[in-house]
Structure formats: structure tokens, C-alpha cells
């Protein structure tokens, strides 16, 4: 009996011991801050949502990695202006047919040449329906694209190793502006053998490359080193980039304070009012290419036709945007003056009709009364939002202002998760107003207008339709001169101010800070730091 008992104890202890041992050995610490790694800049990131395939990445976590390891035809500077990266020239005479020449002698980090085929094949792969790429809609305007069946992009033609031509379905003057977006990056031929494997260990042609096989440690970090063969304007000024994935912004901020992180591009809400005091000139607050609004579809009762336009204008005028951005967001949002963003070329604060965004309680009441004369108001006005995204505070504030200034019953309608509210919006089952937002994919006015408000456009969640607006967009796209095109887009916005398909609220601001050991930190138009410019002492 005694022996048996000891046996059991031994089994129990051994089992526990094995657990401890296996746990301990798997976590061998890696090289600590030694000399050779001192020039590596560490920054915050998120575990990419998808494999690192350029056409399948549509979120910031994966996007900032791809932008570092790939070079597209063009890149954007801090102001969002495009400059040639791989492209030698991009030419067109009618905004519909483009001839693209690429620089010769460029290589992927596996030694393959970057040729016209690297682009054409990658775009064809990204556009093919059965490849299920999240960014496939970027190729929508190229001739041959189809959502209904597998179809080759017939508009693409390789002339020679360094030249290819693009034929669009219709003139689109901002096509060259799009070419810096990750969906348009080239791929080496080896990628097509096994795209899943490629997504785990992507091979690019950018300023950085992966620090060997398995440099992407899932849920933990990705380590990038300088690509010695990159020969463009974005040459890395540091030894590499260590992008640490954080589950919470609080943890990333604590690491910045504790000296474990060099560059942080998102400040947690709790620190918004203090981070500027703490980091002083090592912090930044600048407008981002993110437009926030809420949408009240015309199909809702009382929001169609003339009555609806009056009610939307009344609601817009009843909101004190300055007060909310100040009180709720501690000044980290900028009240909206148009439907785009201040960081985009062509932005204007003086578009006729934009005074509908100015707070005026009396005018709001008056407009609401005019609408009531058409058909008396009944019921509750609601704004739906996802409760997991920190929207409650501003939605409640807006609802309160509507309550006070219009004398109507208004409230927020929380959905537990983002997936839930987005599904209701996509399925058109939502019966209230709902929050909407748009983060630009590339720095162009059209990107804030076409995909959201054009008749039948992909992200036109409110099913807005106005032929005059559509016509102006089309005219703008047909212009080869950017300034003339932007004029058309501004005129198109005048129509939006009358119809208010979405009620503009504010632009997001990027809030970032960095440690004492780095310098030359500049945030780009898309709120991501220009990592290649950052220099690190020690």
C-alpha cells in the first residue's frame, strides 16, 4: 500500500514537473539589447489579420509591414504626394490608357528581377474572383475585371520587360495616385507556386526585408532588416524595424514609458490628456485621412425626399462639433468642414453649403419645423454603433444635443460587436441611423467620395443616389489635370452638403510619441510613421 501511494505521488509530481519543464525550455530568451541590434527601431503594431499577401491585406496592422517590405510603382511622402518608386514614368493622354515604365535593374530580395510581369501577374492574381482576395475591388476599374466569374484583366498588356500598359473601363484621372497602395505591389514569380507559404514569409523589393525565415512570430512581433539592394528614395536610415504586436494600446504606451519601445503611433484614450506634457516635442498630433460621420438612409421613415433633407440638415446644425471634440475627445479630433480630410490635396474649408456643419440651434429647430410641416415627426431618432469600439461617449453626446436642441427623443443604439453592426448595415436590416467612417486607401479626394456616395458604389451603405453628383464625379475622373479634377470633386461636394447622405462629424487625428533614442520621426498622410527616415542613437 505504501509503495502504491508513493507511486501516485511520483506520477503527480512528474506530470507537474514535465509541464514546468516544457514551459520553461520553449521560452529561451533571445539576444538582449546587444550592440549589433542597437540601431533596430522598435515600434508598435498588430498581428496582421491575414497572410502578408499585398492584395489580401486591407488593415493597418499588415499594411504597415507590407509598405516597409515592398516598393510599389509610387510611394507617398509625408504630405501624401506621390513620387516614383519603382516606376520610371506613368503617362496618359486620356486618363483611360496608361503607359507605365519601370526602372531597370531592380531585384526582389530573393534575386528575381522586378519586371513588368511582376506587376501584371500580381494584379491578375489579386483580381481573380476565385483567389478571394480582400482587396480585389481595387482592380475593378481595369478592363476585364469581373465579380461574377474568373476573368483575366484584359486591360493589362506587357510591352517589354520594363514597360506595360493599362486600359481602364472608363477614364479615371486618380488612377496613378492609387498605385502606391499595397494592392498594387509587384510579386516575384516564386510567390505563385504557393501563395500561403509566401504570405508567411513574403519576399519583397522594398527598403526592408524579413529577418530570415520565420521572422514573423505570430501574435508577438515581426523583425525586419534593411534590404541592401533597395535603390529608391526610401532608403532606410536605421538598421531595421522590430514591429511588436500589442493586444492593447495601454501595454504599448507602458512600453514607451518604460523605454522598451521607440515609436508609438497610437496613444490610449486614458493618456490622451497627458501624453503631450510627458513627451513634449517628442509627440505629435496631426490630422489623419480618416473621416467620421453617421448615416441616415433615405429609406428610413421621415428621411426620404425633401422632408428627409430638411431633417438631416436640422440634425447636422443641432450638433456642436467643437464642444464634443473638445470635451469628449480632449481635442484629438478635428471638427469636419467637408466630406474628405485636411491631409488630402484639394481639401477646402470653404465649399459652398458647408455652413450646414456650423452649430446653430435656432436654425436647426426651424429646419425641423419645416420638415414637420411636410409630415409630422414621430418616434425616436437613434444612432447605431458597436459597443466594442469606444463610440458610446460621443454617440450619447450627439444624442443629448439632438434631444436638447431639437426637442426630440434621441438615443444611441449599441450593438455588442463590430461584426454585428456591420452585418446589419450590409444586409440593410438596420432601421436606424448608424455610425460610418472612411479611412482613405490612397491620398485623393475621389477616394472619399466615389466609393461611398456614387450610385451603387460598394460602400454606399445609405444607398444614396444623385445623378448630378455622379455626373460631376465622372467629369472629375476624366480630367487629366489634377487641379481641374479636384474642382469638379469640390462641386460634387456641394451637392452632398444639400443632401447630406452622411452627416459629417470630425476627422480623426493621429496621436503619437517616441523615445529619446530616436530622431527624425515623421508621420505620413496615412498616420503611419515614415519608419525608413527614423534614426536611432547608440
Amino acid at each position: 500500500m505504501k509503495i502504491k501511494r508513493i507511486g501516485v505521488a511520483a506520477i503527480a509530481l512528474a506530470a507537474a514537473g514535465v509541464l514546468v519543464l516544457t514551459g520553461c525550455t520553449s521560452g529561451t530568451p533571445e539576444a538582449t539589447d546587444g550592440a549589433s541590434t542597437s540601431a533596430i527601431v522598435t515600434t508598435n503594431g498588430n498581428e496582421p489579420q491575414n497572410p502578408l499577401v499585398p492584395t489580401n491585406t486591407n488593415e493597418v496592422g499588415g499594411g504597415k509591414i507590407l509598405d516597409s517590405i515592398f516598393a510599389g510603382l509610387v510611394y507617398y511622402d509625408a504630405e501624401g504626394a506621390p513620387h516614383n518608386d519603382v516606376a520610371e514614368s506613368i503617362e496618359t493622354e486620356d486618363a483611360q490608357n496608361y503607359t507605365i515604365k519601370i526602372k531597370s535593374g531592380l531585384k526582389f530580395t530573393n534575386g528575381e528581377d522586378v519586371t513588368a510581369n511582376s506587376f501584371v501577374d500580381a494584379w491578375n492574381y489579386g483580381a481573380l474572383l476565385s483567389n478571394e482576395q480582400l482587396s480585389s475591388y481595387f482592380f475593378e476599374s481595369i478592363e476585364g475585371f469581373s465579380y461574377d466569374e474568373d476573368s483575366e484583366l484584359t486591360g493589362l498588356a506587357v510591352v517589354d520587360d520594363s514597360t506595360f500598359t493599362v486600359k481602364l473601363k472608363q477614364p479615371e484621372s486618380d488612377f496613378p495616385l492609387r498605385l502606391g497602395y499595397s494592392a498594387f505591389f509587384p510579386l516575384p514569380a516564386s510567390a505563385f507556386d504557393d501563395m500561403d507559404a509566401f504570405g508567411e514569409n513574403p519576399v519583397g523589393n522594398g527598403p526592408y526585408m524579413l529577418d530570415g525565415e520565420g521572422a514573423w512570430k505570430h501574435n508577438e512581433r515581426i523583425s525586419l532588416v534593411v534590404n541592401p539592394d533597395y535603390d529608391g528614395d526610401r532608403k532606410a536610415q536605421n538598421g531595421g524595424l522590430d514591429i511588436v504586436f500589442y493586444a492593447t494600446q495601454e501595454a504599448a504606451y507602458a512600453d514607451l514609458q518604460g523605454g522598451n519601445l521607440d515609436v508609438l503611433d497610437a496613444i490610449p484614450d486614458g493618456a490622451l490628456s497627458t501624453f503631450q506634457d510627458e513627451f513634449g516635442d517628442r509627440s505629435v498630433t496631426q490630422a489623419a485621412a480618416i473621416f467620421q460621420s453617421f448615416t441616415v438612409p433615405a429609406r428610413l421613415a421621415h428621411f426620404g425626399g425633401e422632408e428627409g433633407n430638411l431633417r438631416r440638415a436640422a440634425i447636422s446644425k443641432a450638433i456642436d462639433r467643437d464642444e464634443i471634440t473638445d470635451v469628449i475627445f480632449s481635442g484629438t479630433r478635428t471638427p469636419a468642414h467637408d466630406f474628405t480630410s485636411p491631409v488630402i490635396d484639394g481639401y477646402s474649408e470653404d465649399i459652398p453649403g458647408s455652413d450646414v456643419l456650423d452649430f446653430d440651434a435656432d436654425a436647426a429647430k426651424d429646419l425641423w419645423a419645416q420638415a414637420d410641416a411636410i409630415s409630422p415627426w414621430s418616434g425616436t431618432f437613434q444612432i447605431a454603433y458597436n459597443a466594442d469600439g469606444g463610440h458610446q461617449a460621443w454617440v450619447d453626446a450627439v444624442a443629448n444635443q439632438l434631444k436638447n436642441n431639437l426637442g426630440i427623443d434621441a438615443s444611441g443604439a449599441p450593438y455588442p460587436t463590430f461584426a454585428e453592426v456591420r452585418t446589419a448595415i450590409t444586409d440593410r436590416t438596420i432601421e436606424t441611423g448608424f455610425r460610418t467612417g472612411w479611412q482613405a486607401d490612397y491620398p485623393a479626394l475621389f477616394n472619399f467620395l466615389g466609393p461611398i456616395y456614387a450610385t451603387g458604389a460598394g460602400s454606399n451603405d445609405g444607398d444614396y443616389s444623385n445623378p448630378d453628383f455622379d455626373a460631376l464625379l465622372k467629369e472629375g475622373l476624366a480630367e487629366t489635370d489634377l487641379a481641374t479634377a479636384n474642382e469638379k470633386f469640390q462641386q460634387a461636394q456641394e451637392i452632398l452638403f444639400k443632401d447630406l447622405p452622411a452627416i459629417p462629424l470630425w476627422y480623426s487625428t493621429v496621436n503619437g510619441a517616441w523615445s529619446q533614442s530616436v530622431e527624425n520621426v515623421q508621420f505620413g498622410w496615412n498616420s503611419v510613421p515614415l519608419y525608413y527616415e527614423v534614426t536611432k542613437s547608440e
Partner: protein
Amino acid sequence: MAGYIARRLLQAIPVLLGTTFLIYFMVFAMPGDPIVALFGDKTPPPQVLEQLRERYNLDKPFIVQYFIFLGNIFRGDLGTSFSGQPVSEILATTFPVTLRLALMAVVIEMFFGITIGLISGLRKGGIFDASSLVVSLILISLPVFVVAFVAQYIFGIQLGWFRTTVGPGAPTQDLILPAIVLATISFAQITRLTRASVIETDGQDFVRTAASKGLSRSRIVPVHILRNSLIPVVTYLAVDFGVLMVGATVTEGIFNVPGVGRTLYQAIIRGEGPTVVSFVTVMVLIYLVVNLLVDLLYAVLDPRIRYAK
């Protein structure tokens, strides 16, 4: 004994089937389409949505999805996450980290909890007893995230004794602070359990008998009092493992530990059914094993407990 262990292990099968079914059902019943959420504020073309739903079997009825999942498990395929990583690989990288964290927490809380509880129990009503009572009361009433933030701020940022968050590869020294934080959840319970149990045992006949036989106090305390007081504490340990796993979700988020809690949280938010179910299944499995080990430990502590049928 072997029969007992075998019977217990067989019991695990229906438990596991039941839990996977329940969890799968709950993830499935979660409102909202996870594929739609993949596109952020942008609305995907319906054709692309359809294709992706098909790929992840989300277009099929729940019960079909469940059996596909179950069938794959028997073939050793746990599926892949949206980021294309095999779930088995995610399990293999995250579980060792969390187990290490949880075990460190158990060791810390057991050591301090039992020691302090024992001293308090033996010196009932003294200064030490009173002050340990106050401390444990404070710790019981503080939510774990408060303890975590305060500890991170004081010991990580201000004093610099520990890294603010866990570094690459989750080295054991980086896990000490999170483990201490995690240990505070149950430390107070263990202290109080030990104290009450020690007081009760101390007054029993066999302790007096041992003393009257002339055994020294230094032999009576560990062999007679402590050993007989540990049964309720060990029982609590089994429950505690579950508490630790829950606490780990919060602690891992704050200290950025690449472990189970953090990953599971993200998988739930993203509605990745296979990942969530696999994780929970493994957690249930661990829970069952720990419970079995604890039950076996009873026999070691108290020879009167037998597992004959």
C-alpha cells in the same frame, strides 16, 4: 488505482464532446458575420463575401459545420485562423507560455499563501494574524486589472525592476511580475483557507496526543498539522486553475504576454470559430487533468482516502 485513472479519463470524452458542441454553438450563435467584419468600415462586394464564407464553411448549417470541424479534429487538423496560421501551431506557441505563467502564479500563491496562513493559524489573534487579515482583505477586494496597472507602473515604469511588458520569447524573468499579479487573485483565499484549517486541526486530539508523546513542535507542525490542513487547500487549487486561466486573459493583455488569454480574446472578437473551440477544448482538457491530479494528491495527504470501486 489504474482502473480509477482509466475511468476518470474515459469520463473526459463525453465532457469534451459536450463542451466543444456548446462552445461551437455559442460562437455560431454570436450575431454578426465575421467575414463582413474583415473588411472594416468598407462594404465588400457580395461575390467576394460568398467565396470567403464558402472557404471557411460559414455558408453551411451549424450542425454541418460542427461535424466538419469534429471530423477534421479526428484527422488531426484543427483548422486555420484567418491569418492563415494552423490552429495547432497557435496552440503550441501560446499554451506553454500561459502554463508557465499559471504555474509560476500557483507556486507563488501556494508558497506565500500557505506560509502566511500557517503562521496566522498558529498565532491566532496575534499582530501577524491581524495584519495578514487586512492585507488579504485588500487583495480580495481589488480587481486584478487594478493590481496589474499599479504593479506595471510602480515596478516597471517608475522603479524599472521589471520590463514593462513581456519581451521576445516570453523569458521567464519577464513573467515574474505578471505571475505575481496573477497570484494575488487567489493568494488571499489560500491564506484564509490554510489559516482556518490549521486552527481546526491544531485543536484536534491527534495533535494533542502527538504533543503528549513528547514530539517536538517542529515535527508536529509540518507533519501533523500542516499535512492534515492541506486537503481543502489542494481542493481549492483545482478550482483555482480555472480562475487563473480567466485572470490570465486580463493580465496577458496588460503585460502583452503572447499567451492563451490574449489570443483567445482576439479570436472571439474576430469570430474565428475553430480557433476559439480548439482553445477552449484544450483548456477543458487541462482542467480535467489538473482535477485528476488533485484527486490523486488526496490519497497522499490522507491515507484514509481510497479509490477502490
